C-alpha cells in the first residue's frame, strides 16, 4: 500500500493523535492503512541487552509489562505521564514515535536511551537510531513507503541503574510544556559509570545530550555536577514559544526538569 500510494497513504496505529487531526480535517490521507490487527506488530520481548516492542503494541501493555519495567524502567515511568487510561488503552508505542511530537513522552525516552527503529518496506528493512529517526517537529526520516515495525530499547546491564521521567504540563495528561528523562548507572562506590538524559518540548525534536552526559561519568552525581549538566543542556536548547509557554520559560524548565530527573534517577540507582 505504502509503496503504491506513497505520501498520500498514512498508517493508522492507535489513532489517538492522527484521528483527531483527521476529524479536524487538518490531515487528509488519500489512503489510511489500519495496522491494529497485525499480530506480528504487537509484542514485547525482553532479551539480554535489549527489549523489543512491536510498533503496534498498546501503551497500556507496555506500561503493565513487569519484565520490561525491570529492564527498561524508563518506559513505564514515562507512560504514567502519557494522556489518560483511555488513550493509553488504544495508543501504541510505534504510533507515538512515528507521530514524533517533540513534546511527547515516548520519543524522548527513545532519544535518551538511543532506541533503534526497525523500518520495513517492500524493498527490505533498515534500522535507524532515534537520533537519526526524529528529523523535526512531527517529522521522521522514515520514507513514505516504510513502516515502523519494531523498536529496540537498549537495556543497561549495570546492577545499579536508575532512571526517572518528569514533566510539566498545565493540566495532568496534556502534552508537556517541557519534559525530562534521565538514566544513570553507578558503581559500588557511587561513581557514575554511564549517564544519559534529555528534554522534550524544548526544540523541534526531543533532545538528548550525550556529550554533556559523558561529563558526568566518574563523578558522584552530586547536586552541583547534576545542576551544571542540566544547565549546560538547557543552554543548548532552542525552544519555541506558544500560548502556554515562552521560549525563555521552556529553556528554564529544561534546566530545572533535567536536574530533577537526574537527581531522581541517581537516588533510584543509589537505592539498589
Amino acid at each position: 500500500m505504502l509503496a503504491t500510494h506513497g505520501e498520500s497513504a498514512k498508517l493508522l496505529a492507535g489513532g489517538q493523535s492522527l484521528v483527531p487531526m483527521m476529524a479536524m480535517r487538518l490531515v487528509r490521507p488519500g489512503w489510511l492503512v489500519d495496522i491494529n490487527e497485525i499480530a506480528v506488530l504487537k509484542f514485547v520481548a525482553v532479551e539480554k541487552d535489549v527489549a523489543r516492542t512491536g510498533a503496534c503494541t498498546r501503551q497500556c501493555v507496555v506500561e503493565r509489562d513487569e519484565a520490561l519495567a525491570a529492564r527498561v524502567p524508563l518506559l513505564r515511568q514515562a507512560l504514567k505521564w502519557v494522556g489518560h487510561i483511555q488513550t493509553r488503552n488504544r495508543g501504541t508505542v510505534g504510533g507515538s514515535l512515528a507521530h514524533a511530537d517533540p513534546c511527547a513522552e515516548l520519543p524522548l525516552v527513545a532519544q535518551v536511551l538511543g532506541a533503534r527503529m526497525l523500518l520495513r518496506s517492500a524493498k527490505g528493512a533498515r534500522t535507524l537510531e532515534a537520533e537519526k529517526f526524529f528529523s523535526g517537529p512531527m517529522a521522521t526520516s522514515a520514507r513514505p513507503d516504510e513502516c515502523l515495525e519494531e523498536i529496540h530499547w537498549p537495556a543497561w546491564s549495570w546492577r545499579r541503574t536508575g532512571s526517572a521521567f518528569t514533566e510539566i504540563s498545565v493540566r495532568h495528561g496534556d502534552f508537556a510544556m517541557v519534559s525530562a528523562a534521565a538514566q544513570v548507572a553507578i558503581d559500588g562506590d557511587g561513581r557514575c559509570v554511564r549517564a544519559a538524559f534529555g528534554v522534550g518540548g524544548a526544540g523541534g525534536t526531543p533532545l538528548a545530550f550525550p556529550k554533556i552526559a559523558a561529563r558526568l561519568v566518574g563523578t558522584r552525581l552530586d547536586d552541583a555536577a547534576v545542576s551544571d549538566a542540566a544547565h549546560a543542556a538547557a543552554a543548548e536548547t532552542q525552544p519555541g514559544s506558544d500560548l502556554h509557554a515562552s521560549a525563555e520559560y521552556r529553556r528554564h524548565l529544561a534546566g530545572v526538569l533535567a536536574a530533577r530527573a537526574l537527581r531522581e534517577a541517581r537516588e533510584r540507582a543509589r537505592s539498589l
Partner: protein
Amino acid sequence: MSETLHAVSVEVNGRPRSARVPARLSLVDWLREDLFLTGTHVGCEHGICGACSVMLDGQPVRACLMYVVQAHGHRVTTVEGLAKPDGSMSVLQDSFCETHGLQCGYCTPGMLIATQALLNSNPDPTEAQIRDAIGGNLCRCTGYQQIVEAVQLAAERMAKEAK
C-alpha cells in the same frame, strides 16, 4: 462518488451486530446514529473530553478516536450495557444517583464507563486512583466531588455485596 462500504461484526452490549459502513465512520457515530445507542455522547471529537468513552474488550477507550471498522471482531460496552441483567441500575449507577454524582448528565455515561472499568480492575481504589481514572473525563457541572464520592460509595457497597 459513493463511499465504499465495509462489512463489520461487533458485539455490542452482549449482542452481535453486523453492518456495512464507510471506513471513515467513527465508532461513536455508528453507536449513536445507526444503533440508536444515544447514551454515549460526543463532546469534542478530538479525544480530550471523554464523553464518548466506551469499553472495548472491557477496557475504556474513546469512541470518537476509533473507526467502526477497527471494532470489527471486538466487544463494545456502552452505558446502556452497564445495567444489571434484570435491567435495574448497577451498583455504580445507583451510587451516582445517591451521591448526586451528576447534574446535566452529559458527561455521565463516560464517567460511568471510566469508573466501572476502574472498579473492575481495582475494587478498592484510593481517592487519588479515582481521580486519575477520571482524569481524562471532563465534567463542567460537579467539580468532580460527588463523582469521587459515588465511586467510593460503589466500592463500599460492592465489597459488602461480595461478602
